[in-house]
């Protein structure tokens, strides 16, 4: 947060547009963040379960925009494809296929609502404090990240950050990558058995 304030104070001075998380990016971040917070609140407060799923689109899409701001284009595209393209559609289909009431439902809340709000607030304050205390003074410097990934070398720069993701998947993280394929197969088999009528 202090980093954000410091950056906003820099408006008009010599902002290093190329390397840091610059002023326009901060404005887009703030606007997206406000949209996401409002939409996230609506997800849990709306009485209509279909509307909740639609509000979720804004939250998940906002996360994708944040990834784009961080220049993680591969993660952003994946976020759009998987979360907006698949998960939200899946939720809507789930609502439709289980023949849940499509209109307003009154029984979505239970008695524990105040407790939930309290726990959420405490968690938000604790995590907010810890995050600001640890990372608040940090400034995002894309050039430093690129050099850590070896992308400042013109030879490797062609592959870009997406190339770095690929290197990771087929290099250091090869075993988790292969395990996920086994996991998906097992999940598929089990889900078919549990879902089919017999």
């Amino acid at each position: 947060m202090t980093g954000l304030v410091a950056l906003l104070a820099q408006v008009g001075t010599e902002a290093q547009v190329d390397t840091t998380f610059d002023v326009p990016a901060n404005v887009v971040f703030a606007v997206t963040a406000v949209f996401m917070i409002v939409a996230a609140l609506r997800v849990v407060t709306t009485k209509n379960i279909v509307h909740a799923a639609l509000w979720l689109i804004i939250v998940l899409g906002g996360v994708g925009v944040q990834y784009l701001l961080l220049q993680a284009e591969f993660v952003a595209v994946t976020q759009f494809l998987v979360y907006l393209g698949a998960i939200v559609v899946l939720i809507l289909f789930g609502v439709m296929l289980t023949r849940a009431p499509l209109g307003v439902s009154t029984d979505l809340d239970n008695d524990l609502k105040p407790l939930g709000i309290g726990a959420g607030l405490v968690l938000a304050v604790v995590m907010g404090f810890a995050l600001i205390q640890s990372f608040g003074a940090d400034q995002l410097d894309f050039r430093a990240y690129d050099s850590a990934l070896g992308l400042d070398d013109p030879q490797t720069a062609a592959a870009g950050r997406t190339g770095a993701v690929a290197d990771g998947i087929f290099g250091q993280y090869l075993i988790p990558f292969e395990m996920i394929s086994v996991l998906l197969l097992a999940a598929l088999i089990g889900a078919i058995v549990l879902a089919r009528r017999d």
Partner: protein
Amino acid sequence: MSTLLAALSQLAPDPGYSTPRIDWHGLAPEIVLSAGGALLVLLDAIKLERAKAWMPALANLTLLGTLIPILTLAVEGSTRSLFGGSFVVDPMSLLLKAMFLVVGYVVILLSTNYVAEGDYWESEYYTLLTTSILGMVVMASARDLLMIFVALELLSIPAYMLAAWRKGGRTSNEAGMKYYLMGVFASAILLYGMSLMYGVGRSTRLDVIAENLARPEMQSGVPIVTLAMVFIVVGFAFKVSAVPFHQWAPDTYEGAPTPVTAFLAVASKAAGFVALIQVVFYGFYVRPDIIEPLFFVLAVASMTVGNLIALRQTNVVRMLAYSGIAQAGFMLAPFVVVGDNFDSALSAVVIYLVIYAAMNLGAFAVIIAIARKTRSAEITSLGGLFSYMPGMTVAMTIFLASLTGIPPLGGWYAKFSVWSALLGAETALGVAMAIVMAVNTVIAAYYYLNIAKTMWFDDAPDGDVAPVKVPVGLTGAVGIALVATLVFGVLPGLLTDIAAFGPVSAALGGG
């Protein structure tokens, strides 16, 4: 044309990428196990109904086949570090892998008749069991947050579905649903903790994280480190059903098919502990000021609450669920001295884990055998067991005595090694933990021995004392667990050598 060439040149291998050097011998156990799992799927898809009869045998052969590369690796005895240290094959991880495979073997022996006689989907059952065991075997070597997380999901997701495998039964559906919801909730907390840890540790590899956390500026007053560690530990605390994250366990254990319950209570819980061992003993040990009090609270709450509720249970599976929570407390205890008595604490957790697996699996095996006659898991239905199943009664008594911690059985040695680690640390927390443990051992003795009393002295509730024939698979399962429980108690040196990272090659005669 030139633009096409330019586009194609983008597809050429990135000069920054180098093919990872793969140590095939080190990965052989995982490869054999995945190949066996794939074979099960293929056979099921091609032969359909005709494959059913072969499935348990094939799954068992796969597990035994996986033990071969583990043995060759153990004889060689070297420590292999793959993928820059994110996958480590050392004597301890081999011991844990072998434990998971033997537990899986015994669970399949327990399942064979149970699944064939009930109305279950058989072939898929063994496929899911094998994949879950693959997740555990990888977990034993994982020293990287990402790999630990994927291994955790690989072992949990099949287990969620197996808990709901009795599709017609309401309790089984409830068991699966509860386990699933609590499990994904825990995964979310865990993942959030891991992302925070990546932020401060600057790596997913545990050794690099430990290095970064050990820097002077990270040693105090960094709340994010505390938060990350608490979230990660809480995520695994759900998995090992430590209080106050235990609520799912009794309902899930009671509702799931009993062999699956045995699998959850032993293998799945052990895998959660292995994950805790990896993150705490290879990453977070540099911050004992956070880890020790956290585990003290978890351990004291788990053993006390678990034992007090277990006292009042009338169903033997629920009782074992709560006793499992209390046993988890005993296994969490050595973590309390991670900063002061590192080596003894690590070997105490591993020893307790292996012995717990043997004795608890044995208890479940006997209950499955008994339930073939009584069709019930109420403690009163065990009355008069000695008159018609004397062998099983003796075995169950040995398992219960071992769970209590009576010498010279395995459970005694497990408790002894935890105590010696706690007292050897000579810290106030360690001594307090040892005292709480002693009190809880006495409480636990009451309900364990109460079952033994019912089996030996009470009369059969329905007066039917005709001898019951137990399938050979079940007898074998009880036998394996019995031998392990007795051998580890009488010859504890066998286990300490491996757990203390002694040269296994010497123990096996390989020089």
